[in-house]
């Protein structure tokens, strides 16, 4: 069968503690193996190149109803970045919300092989999966939005964690989801009548429950179910000055669920939740306070939500936050509330260097990433496309690994932001080993994806090879070389197949769709009562709600045994 040998590369595989050693990687039938027949195997000469596991993205909005509405509303975004059909690849459009095929190709060109689509309303889960089927080159999974689901609110209010857990387990299978996503807990239900919650102890109208109870309840449910990832949390008051206090309170509240050193929550796009000040006029970074806390505790992981200075499209289930952006900008505004489950909003947004708030946001994400010492807690994202398009990742790698690179950008920023930025005082520069953690190994570990993010025997042969010679190139000084290299992989291998060479697609492959089959001792009872309740809550029939198996082109379910 198909054997391959990647010879002589500098391997960065942090999960197996391999730091730039020159070694060979053997592949057989799409998996990494101990050795292959040297003569028979196809060889890739990686001499002088950097070899890493395929990139993993823990949080990127690439598919589903909301992303697609974003595409629909922004022809002026597409028209500046068109992609021609080739004999191998489909045509499409790029920029901030690329069409599905182009999304797959562009991730693959950067050496990414696995992505997590973090915002799936269960009612529209079929849509998400249909789009994922048309997103080639990548393995992918989605997080169903459960934080404001009426079932969750009602069972947590009753204090019935076990029943809540059963329903969450049912929902993972029904929506073909991977992790519990919580967005502005309580705020989205309140948004149903145009209101919001403003602290983690505000009561949700009509449901008599607080965000604190929702987050802690679902974190406990997450543990009871033994889900591979933690709860995936978008905090209350996101995007508002002074919200770092809410974020600190949130993390403190979650201490009650923590035990040992295992994380119990992932706070996503932390940059947007780390604003100090009490208004836009004096908005400043709260990174110092947040990083102090995270350095002293082990129950939290986070991703950056880096801001890129460009015209992009913001989209989140946090409807009330998008409304705030609409009030601030007056731009075209989409709001989509989903019955019984969640909400959503979209606003185009142009982050500008010469805007004090935007420049401060840019600085905050880098401050967090650099001040928080343990790279295994921190992951590189832009919250695509909220902070900026994912194809800007190489820029972020440069900013993280080169003080020279970030100072060059800071110099062009708004004076006020420059003055307040902590970046001039930070000397830390991430190494290639650190970069491998924050772009793949750490993300795979936080996700509990055992066959991703490393190059040990048994791992999926998802591999990225970059044109960087660590013996000759110091990426802290030659950051432009690093930027080019990470933007155009010398090779990307997906399941042992070469799919990219020299930054060009060589083969169109379908990736797998990963979801959880959570097995509980007792399952949700599907009886007439359940169906009646269903009819009351939703406008579709129970029979038509689930994501049936045929909605997934290449299925890859993971079975999880729950404690309930």
């Amino acid at each position, binding site marked *: 069968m198909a054997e391959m040998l990647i010879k002589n590369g500098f391997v960065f595989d942090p999960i197996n503690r391999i730091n730039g050693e020159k070694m060979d990687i053997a592949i057989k039938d799409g998996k990494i193996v101990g050795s292959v027949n040297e003569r028979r195997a196809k060889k890739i000469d990686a001499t002088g190149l950097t070899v890493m596991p395929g990139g993993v993205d823990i949080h990127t909005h690439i598919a589903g109803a909301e992303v697609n509405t974003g595409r629909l*509303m*922004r*022809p*002026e*975004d597409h*028209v500046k970045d068109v992609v021609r059909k080739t004999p191998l690849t489909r045509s499409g459009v790029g920029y901030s919300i690329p069409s599905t095929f182009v999304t797959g190709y562009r991730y693959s060109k950067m050496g990414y092989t696995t992505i997590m689509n973090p915002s799936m309303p269960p009612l529209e889960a079929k849509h998400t999966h249909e789009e994922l089927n048309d997103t080639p080159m990548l393995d992918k999974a989605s997080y169903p939005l459960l934080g404001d689901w009426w079932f969750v609110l009602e069972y947590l209010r009753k204090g019935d964690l076990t029943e809540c857990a059963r329903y969450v387990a049912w929902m993972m299978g029904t929506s073909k989801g991977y992790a519990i996503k919580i967005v502005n807990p309580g705020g989205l239900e309140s948004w149903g009548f145009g209101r919001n919650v403003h602290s983690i102890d505000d009561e949700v109208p009509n449901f008599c429950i607080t965000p604190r109870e929702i987050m802690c309840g679902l974190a406990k449910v997450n543990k009871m179910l033994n889900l591979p990832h933690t709860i995936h949390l978008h905090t209350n008051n996101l995007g508002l000055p002074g919200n770092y206090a809410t974020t600190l309170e949130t993390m403190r509240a979650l201490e009650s669920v923590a035990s040992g050193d295992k994380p119990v929550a992932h706070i996503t796009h932390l940059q947007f939740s780390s604003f100090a000040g009490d208004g836009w006029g004096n908005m400043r970074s709260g990174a110092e306070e947040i990083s102090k806390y995270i350095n002293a505790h082990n129950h939290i992981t986070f991703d950056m939500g880096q801001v890129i200075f460009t015209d992009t499209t913001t989209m989140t289930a946090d409807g009330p936050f998008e409304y705030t952006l609409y009030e601030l900008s007056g*731009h*075209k505004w989409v709001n989509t509330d989903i019955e019984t489950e969640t909400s959503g909003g979209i606003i185009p947004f142009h982050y500008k260097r010469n805007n004090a708030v935007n420049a401060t946001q840019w600085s905050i994400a880098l401050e967090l990433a650099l001040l928080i010492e343990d790279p295994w807690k921190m992951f590189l994202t832009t919250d695509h496309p909220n902070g900026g398009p994912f194809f800007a990742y190489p820029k972020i790698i440069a900013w993280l690994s080169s003080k020279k690179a970030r100072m060059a950008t800071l110099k062009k920023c708004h004076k006020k932001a420059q003055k307040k930025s902590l970046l001039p005082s930070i000397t830390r520069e991430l190494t290639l080993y650190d970069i491998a953690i924050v772009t793949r190994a750490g993300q795979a570990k936080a996700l509990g994806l055992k066959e991703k993010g490393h190059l040990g025997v048994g791992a999926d042969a998802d591999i990225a090879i970059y044109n960087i010679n660590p013996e000759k190139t110091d990426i802290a000084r030659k950051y432009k070389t690093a930027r080019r290299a990470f933007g155009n992989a010398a090779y990307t291998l997906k399941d042992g197949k070469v799919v990219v060479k020299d930054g060009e697609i060589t083969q169109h492959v379908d990736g797998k769709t990963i979801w959880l089959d959570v097995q509980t001792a007792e399952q949700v009872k599907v009886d007439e009562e359940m169906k009646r309740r269903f009819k009351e809550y939703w406008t579709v029939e129970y029979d038509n709600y689930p994501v049936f198996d045929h909605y997934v082109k290449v299925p890859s379910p993971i079975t999880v045994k729950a404690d309930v």
Partner: protein
Amino acid sequence: MITLSPLKKFQYPVMAECINPDVFKGKTTAEIAALSVWEGNKQKTLGDLFAIEETAAENPSIVINGDASKVRRVGMGMKNGEIVVNGNIGMHVGEKMAGGKITVNGDAGGWAGSDMKKGLIEIHGNAGDYLASPYRGSSTGMRGGTIIVHGNVGSDSAVFMRGGVIKIRGNAGPFLGFRMGDGTVYVQKECGTRVGACMTGGKIIIAGALQEVMPTFTIDSIKPKVKVDETETAAGPFYVFLGDLAESGSGKIFVSKAVNPHLSMYEKYL
């Protein structure tokens, strides 16, 4: 000077953004003939579709002789030089223009001068819809430069206009100056309905007839005359309306008092 003459009557759209003085500059006729254009879904060369002749004259840089009404994107993004079209020209002529001059001795298709920044477009026939209006979804229209149309223009012109001057010697269609923010539009004859709807700034001068003013405009004053640009002043008197109130805007519409006696009922609010 390069002269282009269509070799046939086109049925399919011809995309020819290469017809641009900046692109032609420094090229031999052979090189110009080899430039890529699209006819329908087939990629062709300029020489496949046009007879190309070079003469020694400096100006204009490019002349198109004949019916080019299916030829789109001529002069797109041009910065220098001059194009003269002796005949009709297709959509998107002078789109994203940043300098130079285009003269059309015939009619122009839709989106002429779309996203224009600088330069001059003069159309001696009629212009289509969306004159000087931006691409779908964009909220930035014409930012500068001058457009003169001697005939009539279609609907939705000067949408999202942010600067520059448009002079229409004939009639204008509906929704002229929709969501306009700045700049000046001067209509010398009849103007269509919903003029200035959702405008927040800028001025629209109507010297001809106007059926009705949007109900969301309020009368401000009567002015004897109004300046169009450095070279031209329109003689009134004009009713001056402010709006659009639905956008709490402060755009101005000047409407000829003499031609529009039916608007005299507004005078009671003065």
